[in-house]
Structure formats: structure tokens, C-alpha cells
């Protein structure tokens, strides 16, 4: 199969699935499930094929002109395919989880239709070859996520959806203004053509700096940088699979990925460093990391605590970008994957507690480890990874961030990392202590808020398996970090390509 065809097939598989799902009637449960899983598997297979092809020197690209001097470009480079691999892998688990989660609930057709549209846009973002294509899919992602956030239709869900739209649409507008200005200045910049901006004379430098921060403001809303993070904790009212999608797979990651593309493939890391942009990014990321952790500490409910934890953890990616040097880049790129694996595990588990036992508040978790041992084990793995303890992948991110900070000559960043680790421990360890060491309803103390026995296992198998599998992935990706095709190895390869001429 030719390179262009395989790219279009990857993108088309979810688009087509979305269209067919909208055409199917609401009650066609089996057909919809089969279609969802089939599309997810096919996409994962195609992306795996491209990973294999890329590692052997293959090329995948397709483009056609839209206007004079503006083209729609899709291209699979190592960085893009890394993000595509992450999102299609996690997508499979999220689909399985969503099918189990939404069993017997209304409006499943609408949900899964937009769900597929969402993955199509995420894939488009990862495979986009220039800013214009990126922006098209980025906006599509915004619009296709809104129905998912507001899915429940309650007043709270609608309000959260409204906040979400306000933030993201404004950001999209800012982003478009920035891109148009950049286009007017330098023409159509393909990702990777770093020499175009690097060749501008010193008189254009202030303009470039200004445009950079305009674009960062645009991306920063989805990446939940403080003070543009307000929508993320509000969006917690959405169903658990949507939270997983917002926090681990698509939306927040799309913002972070946009910053990665902007720094590495449009401005180029050397120009960004020369313009002093990286220090600004480090400062913004440090503030976000600490602020997010502090706010997480103050939350009494499980999902908001996880949401603020995301605010903090996603900024590790931005921090890594800001650390000039290969180690910082490895940290940023690998954390893009690592954070996804760990956070999706945590959200799956939070959803399981809510579905099976009706638990929303942290103080209701006492003794849940005895009632739901596998879910709690998965949660423990995710939480320890977030704190940064080996052998979970979070340790590797922290290691590369720390050593990268020394390489970039910013040793004070280590203090930020340690403070964040301590805060992470302060808000995750009490949860773990409650899960495992406090007596709960299964020890004969109190009662669960709303217990439903969803399956023969500790909960519905479709809910349990994805959580356990992603936890295993986070563990194995850490233990076997030295193996080829591990997230760390892939990120190292991309970073080396970035710094070696």
C-alpha cells in the first residue's frame, strides 16, 4: 500500500466510523460496538504499520493545495507518529471502557458518533504537516468534544460545556490570528522547516517573540497552563471515559503537542533559545506545576483532585520543552506518553469507584482496596507513578527532567520538581492509605454510598480490564524502558534527530 493511501486510511477509518454510527439507529447496540472496536483496532494496526515502516526509513505524506501558497498537508514524521500511536492505543482502551460505562444509558448514538469524530481529529492533529492543517483539526476537536462534555444534559453539564466552549473557541480565535500573522510574515511553513524563521534578521525578532506568545496563549488553553486552565476542573461533570479523553488522550495532549510542534518544528529549538523564549516557558510551567499541585491538595472529591493533578502534570511536558538540551527534549516527549498512560489509569479507576460503589468523595474510599482489589492496585500504580517512584514510568520523566535541568543550566528547576513530588505524595498517599489501610464497609464499618454489583468480577469486566491493562502498560514501560519501541526509546530517537544535524 502506498504511503499516501495508508495515511488517508488511518484518518478515514474513524471518520467513516463516525458517519456510519450517526446513520445507525439508536438500538443497534451490537453493530455499533463492533464498529467502534473494529475501527479502533484497524487504526491501531495501521499506526503500528507506520511505526514499523518509519523505523525502516519509509515515508508517508499526502498534500493538496487549498489556496495559492496554502496547502493541506498530512505527513507521518517520528514525532507525529509517536502521538498518533499513543492516542490510538489509549483510544482502544477508552472505547472498551466507554462501551461498558454507557451500557443502558440514553443517547449512545450521539455519544459514540462524536467520540469517533474526536479521535479522527486527534489523529489529524498528530499527522498534520503544517500549521494550517493543524488548526483545522484542532478546531474540529474543540467542536466534537463539546457534545461529549455536555453529554449528561444536566444544568451542571451544560454550564461546564459552556465554559469549555468559551475558553477553547476564544483560544482558537487567538491561535488563528497568530497563524495568519505568521503566514503573512513567512508564508506556508511546513513542520520541520526550521530554517525559514531562523533566517530572519534581528529587526524581526521582537515580532517573532510576540507571535510566539500569542500562539502559546492559544495552545495554553487546551494545555491548561495557569491561568488559562479554568475549564478543565469544571469539565469534571462529564462521564468518566470523556474525562479520560480530555486528560490523557486527546484534548489536553493536543495543546501540549501544539507547543511541541511550535517550538521544535516551527521556531526550532535553537531559535527559541536564542530569543529567550524557553526561559519564559520554564517559568510558566513551574508556576503551573506548583499551582496545580496546591489546588489538587485542597480538593475533597476524587475527580477534581485528579483534574488539578493533570494541570500540574501536563506542564511537565512544557517544562521539558523549555529545558534546552536533548535530555529536556526526551523528558518532554516521553512524558507526553507517560502522563497519558498513568492519568488514563487513574481516571478509569475513579470511574470504576463511582460506577460500582457510588464513590465520589475521597473520604468515602475507606477500605475500598478489599472490595475492589484490582482497581485499587491499578490506582496505586498510577498514583505512585505520578509521585515519580520507580519502576512506574513517572520516575523516568522526572529523572530526565531533573538531569535535563542541570544540562540546561537551571538547577533550581530541581527544587520545583521535588516540591511537586512532595505535593503529589501529599495528595495521593492519603488516598492510598484510605484504600488499603482504613477499615471500610467490607470490614464491617459503614456502608458504600450506592453499591451496584455490575459483574461477576469486582465490577463490570469492560470497566475493569482497561484499567488493569493501562496500569500494566505504565509499569512495563518503566521496567522495560531500555527495550526498543518503548516510549522512552522512541522519544530518545526523536530527540536525537532534533539535535543532531
Amino acid at each position, binding site marked *: 500500500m502506498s504511503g499516501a493511501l495508508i495515511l488517508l486510511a488511518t484518518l478515514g477509518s474513524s471518520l467513516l466510523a463516525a458517519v456510519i454510527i450517526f446513520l445507525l439507529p439508536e438500538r443497534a447496540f451490537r453493530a455499533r460496538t463492533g464498529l467502534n472496536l473494529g475501527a479502533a483496532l484497524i487504526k491501531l494496526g495501521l499506526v503500528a504499520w507506520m511505526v514499523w515502516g518509519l523505523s525502516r526509513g519509509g515515508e508517508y505524506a499526502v498534500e493538496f493545495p487549498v489556496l495559492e501558497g496554502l496547502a493541506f498537508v498530512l505527513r507521518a514524521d517520528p514525532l507525529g507518529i509517536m502521538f498518533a500511536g499513543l492516542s490510538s492505543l489509549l483510544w482502544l482502551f477508552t472505547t472498551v471502557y466507554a462501551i461498558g460505562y454507557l451500557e443502558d444509558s440514553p443517547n449512545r448514538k450521539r455519544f459514540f458518533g462524536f467520540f469517533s469524530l474526536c479521535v479522527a481529529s486527534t489523529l489529524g492533529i498528530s499527522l498534520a504537516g503544517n500549521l494550517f492543517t493543524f488548526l483545522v483539526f484542532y478546531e474540529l476537536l474543540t467542536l466534537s468534544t463539546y457534545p461529549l462534555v455536555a453529554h449528561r444534559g444536566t444544568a451542571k453539564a451544560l454550564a461546564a460545556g459552556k465554559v469549555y466552549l468559551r475558553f477553547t473557541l476564544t483560544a482558537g480565535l487567538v491561535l488563528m490570528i497568530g497563524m495568519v500573522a505568521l503566514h503573512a510574515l513567512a508564508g506556508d511553513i511546513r513542520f520541520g522547516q526550521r530554517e525559514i524563521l531562523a533566517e530572519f534578521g534581528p529587526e524581526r525578532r521582537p515580532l517573532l517573540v510576540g507571535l510566539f506568545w500569542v500562539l502559546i496563549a492559544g495552545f495554553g488553553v487546551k494545555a491548561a497552563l495557569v491561568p488559562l486552565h479554568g475549564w478543565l476542573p469544571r469539565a469534571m461533570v462529564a462521564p468518566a471515559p470523556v474525562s479520560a479523553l480530555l486528560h490523557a488522550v486527546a484534548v489536553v495532549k493536543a495543546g501540549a503537542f501544539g507547543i511541541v510542534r511550535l517550538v521544535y518544528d516551527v521556531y526550532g529549538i535553537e531559535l527559541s533559545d536564542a530569543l529567550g523564549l524557553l526561559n519564559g516557558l520554564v517559568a510558566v510551567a513551574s508556576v503551573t506545576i506548583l499551582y496545580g499541585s496546591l489546588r489538587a491538595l*485542597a480538593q475533597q472529591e476524587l475527580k477534581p483532585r485528579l483534574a488539578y493533578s493533570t494541570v500540574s502534570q501536563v506542564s511537565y511536558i512544557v517544562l521539558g520543552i523549555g529545558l534546552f538540551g536533548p*535530555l529536556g527534549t526526551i523528558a518532554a516527549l516521553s512524558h507526553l506518553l507517560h502522563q497519558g498512560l498513568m492519568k488514563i489509569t487513574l481516571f478509569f479507576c475513579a470511574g470504576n469507584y463511582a460506577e460500582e460503589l457510588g464513590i465520589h468523595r475521597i473520604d468515602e474510599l475507606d477500605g475500598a482496596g*478489599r472490595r475492589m*482489589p484490582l482497581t485499587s492496585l491499578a490506582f496505586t500504580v498510577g498514583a*505512585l507513578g505520578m509521585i*515519580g*517512584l*520507580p*519502576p512506574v514510568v513517572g*520516575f*523516568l520523566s*522526572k*529523572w530526565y527532567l*531533573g*538531569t*535535563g*535541568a*542541570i*544540562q540546561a543550566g537551571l*538547577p533550581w528547576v*530541581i*527544587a520545583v*520538581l*521535588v*516540591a511537586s*513530588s*512532595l505535593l503529589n*505524595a*501529599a495528595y495521593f*498517599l492519603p488516598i492510598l*492509605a484510605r484504600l*488499603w*489501610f482504613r*477499615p471500610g464497609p467490607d*470490614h*464491617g464499618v459503614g456502608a458504600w454510598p450506592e453499591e451496584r454489583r455490575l459483574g461477576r468480577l469486582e465490577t463490570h469486566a469492560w470497566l475493569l480490564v482497561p484499567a488493569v491493562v493501562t496500569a500494566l502498560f505504565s509499569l512495563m514501560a*518503566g*521496567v*522495560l*524502558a*531500555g*527495550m526498543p519501541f518503548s516510549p522512552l526509546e522512541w522519544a530518545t530517537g526523536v530527540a536525537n534527530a532534533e539535535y543532531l544535524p
Partner: protein
Amino acid sequence: MSDVLFAVALSSALLWPLLLALRLPLKAALAQRGRPPAPLDGLWCTAPLPALALVLGLGEGTLALDWWLLGGVWALDGTRGPLLAFTALLWLLAGIYARGYLAGEQARAVAGDGAAEARLTRFALLWPVTLSGNLLLLVAEDIASFYLGFAVMTFAAYGLVVHSGTRDARTGGLAYLVMAVLGEGLILAGLLWGAGSAGTTTLGGLREGMLEAPGGAWMGLLLWLGFGVKAGVVGLHLWLPLAHPVAPTPASAVLSGAMIKAGLVGWLATLPLGEPGAGQAFAWLGRAMLVAGLAAALGAALYGVCQRHPKAVLAYSSVSQMGMITALVAMGLVAPALWPALSAAVVLFAAHHGLTKGALFLGVGIGEHPPRLPAWLLWTLLVLPALSLGGALASGLATKWAFKSVLYDGGHAAVVTWLSLAAVGTTALMARTLWCQWQGERQAREDGLEPLVAPMPLAWLATLLAALTLPWWLGEGLATPGGPPPAELPGLLWPLAVGLVASVTAWGVARHRPLRATWRLPPGDLWWPLARAWQASRRRGQACLARLGLAQGAWVAWWVARERDAVRALDGMTRGEAWLRRHAAVLMMVVAVGLALALLFSAA
């Protein structure tokens, strides 16, 4: 061939405890119906056996694994070997002891007591996991594995501390966890900074890199304090006296005997000890360590003799002993030339303290459940390890002679004097422990005697034997066999004599004029004021946060109000339009008349 054998032996030593831990939930799942299985069986006790076989059978070797974390390097050498040997032995004997100690709980669990079963399962699961972490940190040469072992041991041991689930246990567990997390943070900072500067992933590379890196001494300070939490450096020792008394006795024994040595292992692994090119900054760090060590050695002894619980006294004794070890390690920075000889003494000290303190802690349980032995024999056996820790005989005497001779030869007589003063304190602490035990034992003897041939007394006796004969079986290079020459004995034994006289005097005075202290010195000293200060500052912080939240709410509300104003302005336009529509005819008339008038006047 021997490489392959070493690799197999090492991985089985690390994996066997984990497999034993995994076995429990599997067994429980398989035996869902019917009576619950007893978790602490004979097989469970064998967890440290492969590690013991490794160190006694194979000795030295190296294993490198490229795929493991950041690249794994595990090694066994002249320093690690003896540490691993005494650690594995202590874990083995404490494990056997635990079977007896928790037999009552096990019987209740099998009989169907759900709470006992849950507690016991947790203990049986976390004990081998903690052991596995302890073993890994001893053999790890790469930083990631070392940190992994340290973290696994630290966090799994929390479950052992809070085993009983009482209020005191929760307080002890909280103190343990808070301090441990602080320590982990400091260690992480030191490791990242050092490894980043040196560009290395191994501990050897870290030690060398620190010598040249700018700010190397600050890295050393971070690592010293970070590991110092575990080793009970003064000020960071708060968790020890709170966690030890509440943990089950076998857990206290390994906590005090084996796990706090992990802090020492951390120092040995990361600090550039005995490096002649270490520079002045490191020498200053060494002096700080020396002062802190001696302060801990003396201060803990003074505070410890005021305690009432024998395990709390023993915990303060551990702080005091680790203070002496800290002082010896500090000499590796202050006087690097002494280190090759001194390091052997430090390892011997660690092994001696580990096993002897283990025997003392296990002895506390023996005092509470006395076996069928004549009272004089039981008390002789209980006094022996106390005398050994005071430096009067066997391994204690050998250890004292080992470091004293090195320090005298190096011309550091002042340090020796201070250490001897600390030994006076140790003697007083031991007297206090035995006194506390004596009070409890008389009561226990009236309640009835336990059989002698049972796991508890046998494991205790074996630990005692291993501790006393330590210099003869642990590595020839560490101790001079045969002990010190007789001429040196008075110099070595006077602290014991002074300590005994002081204790007896204090006892005599207290008997005639009972000290009616209106205040009690609680175990955990600084923990209580710090905890109160924390609560107060937390309340203040919450008030601040609440104000901040109000301010944010006001800010958002202001914007929402502006938005409403804008919408109202838009509505106003709509109303204006409607008004225009309604009055269009009149307005047109007015305009037309106006125009006509204007034309008229302009024409005129």
C-alpha cells in the same frame, strides 16, 4: 559460567520474596469457599533464604541488565556482602519469630475473624515486599534500582508500622510516612542534581562526579539529610520513637536492625568518603556530620532514659547508636586517609548493631511472653545483648576496638572520648530497658509460661547467638579475630562501669525520693510541638485560601456583571430600534418638515 550462576542466584534472591507475596492473594482466590488459609506458613519464612545462600555461597560478582529501567547494574562486593549477610539473616530469624508472635492472630483469622484475617494478610504480603526492597538497595549499583529498592522498602514498611490499626499506630505511621516522604524528596533532589552534573546512572559515577561538580558539597548535604531521615540523624529522627513501639515486635526488630541501616548504605553509596581530593567543602560537611552524630549519640541517650516503654527506650538507643555511626562516617570526609580502615569498622558496627538490636527487640517480646526457662537463665540471656551493645563483650567489644584503634592511630583522641561518653549513655539506656522489661516480665510470669521449643524463643536464641558470635563468622577482613589485647581492656570498659554506677545511683535515688515529675517526656520529642505548629499554620493557610477564593469569586463576578451590562446595552439597541420602528412615520414627517424648512430658509 559463574556469571550465569550469579545472575540466577541474584535474581532469585530478589524475586523469591515477591513470588511468596504473590502466592497469598492467589491462594486466597483459589480457596474462596471453605476456611481461609493460614498466611504465615513455613514457606513464607523462607523469603530471605536465597539471598543468604547467595552471599554465603557465591560471594562476589556483577550483573548488568541493559533493558532494566535506565540500565541496571547489580553487584556484590566486600562491603555489600557482610551487609547483605546480616540483613538477610536478621530478616530470616525475625520472620520465624513473627510466626510465633502472630500465632494468636493467625488462630483467630483461621477461626473466621475477618479483621484479624485482613491485618494478617496485609502483614504477610508486605513483609516479603519490604524485604525485597531492602535486598535490592543493598545490591544495586545503578541509581534507579537503588532508589527503587529504597522506595519499595520505605513505603511497604508503612503497612508493618500501622499493623495493629490503633490510634497510636496511626500516629506512628503518620510520623513515619511524613518523614519518609521528606527524606525521599531530599534524596531525589541530591540524586538528580548529582547525576545530572556527572551525566551518569551509577552510584560509582555519582561519587566521582560530585568531587568535580560545582556545589558538590551541597549535593552531599542533600543526600546526607535525605538518607539521614532513615538513619535517624538528630532532628530527622522523630519517626523512630513513634513508629517502633507501635509496630509488631518482629517488625520493630527489622526496622531498627536492618532498615535504618539503609540510610547508612545510602551514605556509603553516594558520599565521596575517603577521597583525598574531596576539598574543603566536603571536610566542612564532614564536620557538620560529626557534630550532628555526636549530638544524636548523647542527646538521644539523655532523652531515652526518661522513656517508659522498653521499645521506645530501644528506639532512642538506635538513634544514639546511629549517631555514633554517623560520626564514624563523617571521619571519612574529615580525615579521608583513615577511611579504608574505618570503613571496615563501620560495616562491622552496622552488622553488630543490626543483630544485637534485633536480639534486644525480640527480647522485649520474650519478656512479655516468657518461655519455660529458669528466671536466672532468662535474665542472663536478656542481659547479654545489652552488655554487648554497651561494648563489654563479644561483637560489641570487637566493634569498639576496631574503630577505637583506627581513630587512635589517626590521632583523633577527642572523637574517641566523645564516643566513650556516648557509650556511657548506651549503658544507661540498656539499664533502663532491662528495668522496664523487669517490671513487665514479673506480671507476665504470673500469667503463665510459654513452651521453649516454639518459633519465638528459638528465633530469639538464634539471633542472640548470631549477634554474639558475629566477629567470628562475618568476613575475616572486618574484625581482628581474638579481640583487643588485655592491656587495652580498661580503656574500653570504663564507660560501661561509669554507666552502671550512674544507673544504680539514679535508681537508688529514685527509690528513696520518687521523682514526681509533673510533666512527662513523650516519645517522639519534637514531633508534638511541630505537629501543633503545623495545625496552627494550616488553619491560617486555610483562612488565607478562603479569602483568595472569595477574591477570585469577586473577580469572576465582576466580569460576569460586565458581560451582563454589555448584553443589556445590546438589548437597549433592540429597544431603540423598536422605538424607531414605531415612530418611523412621525420621524419621517419631522425630517421632511425640517428639510423643507431648511430649503425654505436657504432659498430666502
